[in-house]
Every structure is written in C-alpha cells, then in structure tokens.
C-alpha cells in the first residue's frame, strides 16, 4: 500500500483462520442475542397470558402483535445491522474481527466507503447462511423420510464453492470482498519497545555489571555480520531467556575468534549489538548496506 505521501506501507492479509474465527464469534453473538430476545419476548407474552387469567381468548391481540413485530424487525435489523454498523465504524471491524486482530480495508489503499461495506455484507447471505439454512432444512426433511433428490449435493457444492473461495486467490478474497473491492487485513498493533542501546553494557561508557569489563570490538570482528544477524540478535536480547543467550554468545565468540567465557553473556551481547549496529548504521549513511553475513 502506498500512502498519499508516497510512503510504502506493508499490509498483511489476514490469515483465513483468523477470519473463520471472527465469523464464528460474530455468528455466536448474533444467535445468542436473538435467542435471548426471543426468550424475553416469550416471557413477556407469558406475563400477558397470566394477566388475562390464563384465558387465551382474553388476550389483547394488539399486545401480542406488537411483540411479534418487535421480533421480526429485531431479527432483520440485528442480522444486517450487526456487521454493517460495526464495519462502518472507525475500527472497520466487528467484535469478532477485533478479538482476532483483523479489520477490513479497501483494496489498493483507497478509502473505505459505506457502499463497499454494504455490498460485502449483503453477499454474505448467499455465501454462507442461505446454503447452510437450506441444507439443515433439507437434512430435517430427509430425516423424516422425504425424497430430496440431488438438491442436497447441489447445495453442498454451492456452500463449498463459496467456503473455499478464499483459498483460490492470493489475497484470500471471498465473493463479498470481490464485489465490494475490499480485503481483510491484519490490524497493526505494536507497543514501542525499549531503547536497547541505552541499557547495560550497550551504552557509550557502559561496562559489564558483573565483571566491570568494557567490551570493545575491532574492525575485523564487526565486519563479519550483517543486518539480518543484527536484527536476530536484537530479537533475542529483547525476549530470549539467558540459556538461549549463552548459546548465541558461544556462537559469536567462535565466529570472531574469542575465547567464550561464561557468566557475563548478556553484557557481551549488549555491547556487541550496540557496536555492530553503530558500524552498520554508519555504513548505511554512506550508502553501504550489508544485508547478511554472506554479502
């Protein structure tokens, strides 16, 4: 994706598993709340019935009809509104999508328009819900001994076609995404990590807290590794346990021809990281980049 400022931003297409998970969460929310509202209405209707001395003839027709209207309109509004309203919001994601860390976006870096959100959600019906509902109705019919012919297979094929649709294109688009010009991407999320070069032995005058030694690496030792190794080391310094650091320590010492001691691995690695990065970044400013240890 390229922003209007000419900056390229990498976009990660959401994994299909996340999307399936999001859909399942959303459908569960919808179904559970529909059942809850239905139970509530039944409870009110029972109250009405009790109020009319348990005589159905005495029931006010208007009141029952009103309950029915509420139910019908609620189902319609909830069914279509749930996805629509949430995806139109600033997050561009339903509750399920938010939980699985994904959102919708317009393909190719355009703005997401209300029309696109409407289009992608109207198509969801034929992709999943109609075939599923019809299939379950057919299953019940077949169970009661009725002949349903090849209709079941046709519907299964239909269902599978749309279900597998995201697997047959690079961007994992479903039919609704194609029609709306949208895709589902990972929601970027990240906390700013601490500055490594101001910690421990990585600082300019820093020395090891254990031995008091200041590690200094020469030209030859720093020219072995490149950017890839530097960033691997960064990742390890940020979140690896001491045992893993010991292994890295031993490997680096062997590579640069030092004698690996023990007990001061972290300070060594911090110092090595800071000095290697300083060197590589200085080279970058002169337009020299060393991608990895092989280049």
């Amino acid at each position, binding site marked *: 994706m390229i922003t209007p*400022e000419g*900056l390229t*931003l*990498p*976009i990660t297409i959401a*994994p299909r598993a*996340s999307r399936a*998970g999001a859909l399942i969460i959303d459908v569960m929310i919808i179904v559970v709340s529909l059942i809850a509202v239905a139970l509530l209405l039944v409870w009110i209707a029972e109250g009405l019935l009790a109020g009319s001395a348990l005589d159905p003839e005495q029931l006010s027709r208007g009141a029952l*009809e009103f309950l*029915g*209207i509420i139910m*019908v309109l609620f*189902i*319609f509004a909830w069914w279509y509104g749930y996805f629509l309203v949430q995806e*139109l919001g*600033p*997050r*561009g994601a339903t509750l399920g999508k938010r939980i*699985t*860390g994904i959102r919708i976006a317009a*393909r190719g870096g355009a*703005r*997401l*328009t*209300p*029309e*696109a959100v*409407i*289009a*992608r959600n*109207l198509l969801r*019906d*034929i992709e999943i819900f*109609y075939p599923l509902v019809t299939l379950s109705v057919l299953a019940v019919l077949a169970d009661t001994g009725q002949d349903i012919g090849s209709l079941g297979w046709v519907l299964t094929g239909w269902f599978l076609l749309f279900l597998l649709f995201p697997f047959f294109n690079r961007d994992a688009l479903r*039919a609704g995404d*194609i*029609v*709306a*010009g949208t895709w589902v991407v990972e*929601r*970027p999320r*990240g906390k*700013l*990590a*601490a*500055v*490594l*070069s*101001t910690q421990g032995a990585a*600082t*300019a005058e820093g020395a090891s807290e254990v031995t008091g030694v200041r590690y200094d690496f020469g030209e030859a030792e720093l020219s072995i590794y490149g950017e890839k190794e530097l*960033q691997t080391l960064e*990742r390890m310094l*940020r979140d690896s346990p001491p045992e893993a650091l010991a292994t890295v320590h031993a490997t680096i010492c062997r590579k640069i021809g030092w004698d690996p001691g023990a007990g001061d691995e972290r300070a060594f690695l911090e110092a090595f990281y*800071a000095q290697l*990065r*300083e060197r590589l*970044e200085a080279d*970058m*400013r002169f337009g020299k980049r060393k991608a990895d240890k092989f280049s």
Partner: protein
Amino acid sequence: MKAPIISSWFGRGAVAAPPDIESAALRSDRFRLEREGDWRRLEDILARMERGGLRRIADDDLIALPALYRTAASSLSVARETSLDAATLAYLEALVQRAWFQVYGPRQGFIRWLRGFLLGGWSRAVRALWLDICIALFVMVTGTIVGWLLVAQDEAWYYRLFPAGAGETRVPGASREQLLKSLGHDEGAAGLAGFAAQLFSNNSGVCILAFALGFAFGIPSLMLLVQNMALLGAMLWLFNGQGLVVELAAWLSVHGTTELFGILLSGAAGLHIGRAMAFPGKLPVLDAAAAAGRRSAVVMVGVVIMMVVAAILEAYPRQLVEDTGSRFVIGGTMLTFWLSYFILYRPAGDAAAQEAG
C-alpha cells in the same frame, strides 16, 4: 489467530518515560528519542478515535492529528534509511498504518451518508443501472407471459407454481365470487402491523437474494425474476378466466407498483454485478466487479426502503381501501412518485458528484 491482548481492553499500561537523549550512544536512537513523544501522543489520539468517541477528543488533538500523522510518516521513511532497530521500525509501520486508516478513513458519519443518499445518490445510482433495468424489465414481462401461457396450456402448471395450501380459494375452477372475495378483506385493521413487518422482512430477504445471486454472472437473478413473475402471470390468467383482471390489477397496484419496482431494481443490481464480471471492458475484472458492486449496493439500500413502503401499503391501504378506482389512484401515485424521483430528480451539484463518485 492472535491471542487478544487483554490488557489493551482495560486501559493502557503505564508508559515508561524515555531515557534521556544524551545517554543514547547511537545517532538513530537519539533520532528516535527526540520524536518518541509525538509518536506516543499520536498513538493515544488514535486509541481514543478507534474507541469511537470523536466528541471526547480535544480540539487541539484533532487539529494536531494530520501533522502528527505526517511526522510519524516522515519519521518512518527516515528511520528506514538510517536505523536498524527492527522493533522501532515495526512499531512505526503499525502506527502510520493505524493513523492512515483514521486520517483517510471513512470520516463520513452514517447520517451524513444517508442524507447524501436520499438527496441524489440513490436516484443517480439507479440511473447508472438503466441498461440492466431495461433487461430485467424485459425478463420480468417475459416471465409473466410465460407464466400465463404455461397455465393456459396446462392447468397442472398452476399447482406447480402455487403449491396450494388448505383453504386456498385462488385455484383454477374457483367461482367469480370466491375470487372477488379474496381481493377484499374480512378482518378490519387488526393484525395488519404484524402482517406488514412480516411482509417487509420476507420481501427484503428475497430482494437481497436476487442481488447476491448476481455474483454468478447474473443468471440466477434473472431466473428468480422469471419464477416470481410466472406466479403473477398464472394469477392473471386465473382472474382473467372470470373477467376480473382489472380488479386484480387494482388490488395489486396499491403495493405492487412499489414492490415490483423494488424487485426490478434488485434484479437489475444483481445483473449489473454479473455483467461487470462477465464483460469487464477495459478494467481488470476485480476492479470492474468492485465498481459495479458499490453502485449496486446503493441501489439495494434503496430497495430495502422501498420494501418498507410496499409493506405498509400492502398491509394498510390495500386491506382498508376496497374501491377499484381508489386502489388504482394509490398505486399510480406511487409509480409516478418513484419514476419522477429516479428520472427527473437531479439536484444541483449532481454532475460534480458523479465525477467524484
């Protein structure tokens, strides 16, 4: 699937104060520490915007947002050239992308969109589909004629089209009185609101189906139209047998002019998508489909509104007004209204909006 970060739902964790800038040995880290405050402020504003409360954000912050976004964007491009700190680069990429969604996102609220939709957007989208509407209309008329001819040749078709339930009087061989009675009503106003809600929900569902089926190159949409209109043809044939076509037409016209128009539009919207995918013209198929899909989606929102109107008309005036002439007046008025809204209504600035949209 990523595990949800629970802590992010319950307020933000305390942010550690950045170390002082002089202590950083690296030039790239000094660069980062100098700008970190701006990034964090941007992140904070974004978090509040994503939570949805634009009103809770101070004016200062809203005004600062574009500038902070550009700062972060330029920080990112500088950092890419000068820094090898992978964690900072990843953070900046995520931050700029989040900010991009807010700065260039759909900043048009639903109410504003709806106003634009009613005041021109809807009729413009309908006019853009004129060719598909013509095709769908042709198919619907053909469907009606086919239905009529089929039943006229073999009465068994009537039962195939209408699986008649018990107590159904509208079957071949019914007397004139029975048919006439089915056009009237016998209940008064009771139960009509529930009837209307039920009709609306059902008919909108059918229309959305007709639209969504357009994805298969529009063919299923057209088949759905033919099937629905064949019912109408069969019914016309039945009432014609007893010389009641005018009465039936009046009965139908009250809501039918709106409902059939809506069905026509949803079929046309589906066909529009199908046609764009089959014949994308100069555009890539995906782009053509997306453009057609967005245009049709506008029409479909309108169809849902038409279904609300049709359901109200069907439940109330049709059941309460019995006179053939008055029924025609209501239906004709609705038809005139829709036609003039779609064809004649072109508010000022329409051409400019069309360029933009």
